[in-house]
């Protein structure tokens, strides 16, 4: 069936709520309204007010309550209305959820999913455009995923709900209704921890995830005559699928990392450092990165365009690397 990215998310939650009575959805306006973006449209009506729960504007509570439920064997999905607001639940994520199993010597698991719309490109301004994945990739005990396709959005969310560890699921709001894809009618899962080889190529590798995957794929198609590009979609950012990353770096000898999050302190730095260390003798050029400029994501269209990576910047970065 042909579905949008957000419909894939809705289907994943619907199916998991139906499959397992321990699954719950909690978040601001997720009930009658069906969520600010309609990701949970109809779910409360179908699964009941006890299991699709409208929460007060209290992110710390939402995450903390999720941990309490998880200790009781429930599997809460915790929606953060805009991922920017995740900072208000930061303490509960990094200090309560991420440490729970470790500081209890393995006595319990923490099967929670924290999900919400991230990313820019929609003129959301400073507080509705952020890509804060790197904050969480520094925290042991968490898993971080960021799907780029409708297929992955559904399969990764279902895996996250069934995972016994806290998973942060960054969905990209730019993709919600802009991409449509045929997905299987029957149930499937996408494993956490595995990157996707989106396109094979010989000349250079572009490693990316989230919204830029689509621009990178377009570049790979458009530039096919001049350079044969391999595209890797990380999908899971913590932990990263290093085997896939390194195999591709060794194969092509040139790597560009593209992400929408700003460059300084971003995931790209970690990927670049690891490749530089482990694949040094196979490299034919510097490991390069393209991310947002080191500034907040501004509101006005021209400024947002200037700050975020786009098709043109990606093409330019690929040419620069290919020239080595």
């Amino acid at each position, binding site marked *: 069936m042909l579905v949008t990215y957000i419909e894939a998310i809705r289907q994943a939650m619907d199916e998991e709520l139906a499959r397992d009575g321990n699954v719950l959805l909690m978040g601001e306006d997720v009930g009658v309204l069906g969520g600010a973006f309609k990701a949970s449209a109809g779910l409360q009506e179908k699964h009941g007010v006890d299991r699709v729960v409208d929460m007060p504007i209290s992110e710390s509570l939402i995450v903390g309550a999720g941990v*309490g439920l998880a200790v009781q064997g*429930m599997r809460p999905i915790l929606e953060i209305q805009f991922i920017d607001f995740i900072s208000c639940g930061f303490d509960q994520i990094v200090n309560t959820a991420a440490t729970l199993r*470790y500081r209890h010597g393995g006595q319990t698991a923490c099967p929670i999913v924290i999900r919400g719309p991230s990313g820019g490109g929609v003129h959301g301004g400073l507080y509705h455009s952020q890509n804060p994945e790197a904050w969480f990739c520094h925290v042991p005990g968490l898993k971080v995923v960021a799907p780029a396709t409708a297929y992955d959005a559904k399969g990764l969310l279902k895996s996250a709900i069934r995972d016994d560890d806290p998973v942060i699921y960054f969905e990209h709001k730019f993709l919600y209704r802009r991409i449509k894809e045929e997905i299987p009618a029957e149930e499937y899962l996408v494993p956490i921890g595995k990157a996707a080889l989106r396109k094979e190529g010989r000349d250079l590798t572009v490693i990316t995830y989230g919204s830029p995957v689509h621009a990178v794929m377009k570049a790979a198609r458009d530039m096919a005559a001049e350079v044969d590009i391999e595209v890797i979609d990380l999908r899971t950012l913590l932990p990263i699928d290093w085997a896939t990353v390194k195999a591709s770096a060794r194969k092509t000898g040139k790597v560009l990392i593209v992400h929408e999050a700003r460059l300084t302190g971003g995931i790209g730095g970690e990927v670049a450092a690891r490749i530089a260390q482990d694949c040094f003798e196979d490299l034919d050029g510097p490991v390069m990165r393209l991310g947002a400029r080191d500034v907040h994501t501004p509101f006005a269209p021209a400024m947002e365009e200037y700050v975020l990576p786009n098709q043109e910047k990606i093409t330019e970065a690929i040419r620069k690397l290919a020239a080595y």
Partner: protein
Amino acid sequence: MTEQKDRELYRWLRLIREFEDRISALDKQGKLMGGVYSGKGQEAVTVGFCHDLRWNDWIFPLHRDLGAYLVKGADPKRLMAQIFGKRDGFAKGKDSYLHGGDLSNGIFGATSMLAATLPVAVGMAYKFKIRKEDRVAIAFFGEGASSRGDVHEAMNFAGVHKLPVIFVCENNFYAYSTPNELQFGVDDVAIRAAGYGFKGEVASGNDLHDVMKAAGKAIDRARKGDGPTLVECKTYRYHGHSEHDRAADYRSEEEVITWESRDPIFLWENYLDKRKYDIGAIRVETSAEVKRIVEEAVAFAEASPSPEGPEAMEDLYAMPIDTEAR
């Protein structure tokens, strides 16, 4: 109350006191690492709230509620091993003091972000409610922690859904060194409950009778589906914030002496005496028993193996991922 229960309660007060004193002594001897947070003087609060709980109720102790662990059913030996950072502790040496809970006995480990357990307790109470389970959750926190947003967020939601949760504020008048008048503009933390739509009560935290009365009412209310209660217990910590803090810089000796005259064990002994029990014999008998329990716990903890370095990598994920495999 029956004589048997009166004596049992006395035994718990004394066991906790012995435990606290022994830990302070071990700390002075340099046998413990990290921070030690004595709850000496506050024993009546945890005994009063935990004694009549059922095994499947849950408690969320604060950082000096060692006594709550014992009364709720934690093995004293394992608790001591936890404090020693040994492999037999609840955290298997991965974290200190009361950060490793004993989940099989319904005791949740705290973090150092005080009051962060309140939202967790509320989430658990939500499950008790939707699954129609006859269980309660009790979250302990200090009056210092009451300034944090998590307290507001948790109480607000508990009020909305009338959850079977009890919030117990152990008001010992100092957040580390900061006195109450620099912490909040109200006399009683308990009055804040009104803002969340449930009842707030003040109890004399050193008087076990008073604590048990308040606890009984609150637990009963929660079990009947009448929602949460905030109980503020006025009490006092004899020691500093931690064993490294003498507390002499910010509170007077007179104040400490005043509170020592209201010692919870002393008050309970007076009560036993009034009931014409043979307090002399009870005291001797109880002393011998609690000393034996604590010494056995220390011996067990000292003999428990220290974890090896590579054990630090265990227990991080329930579902590990092999990211090197293709």
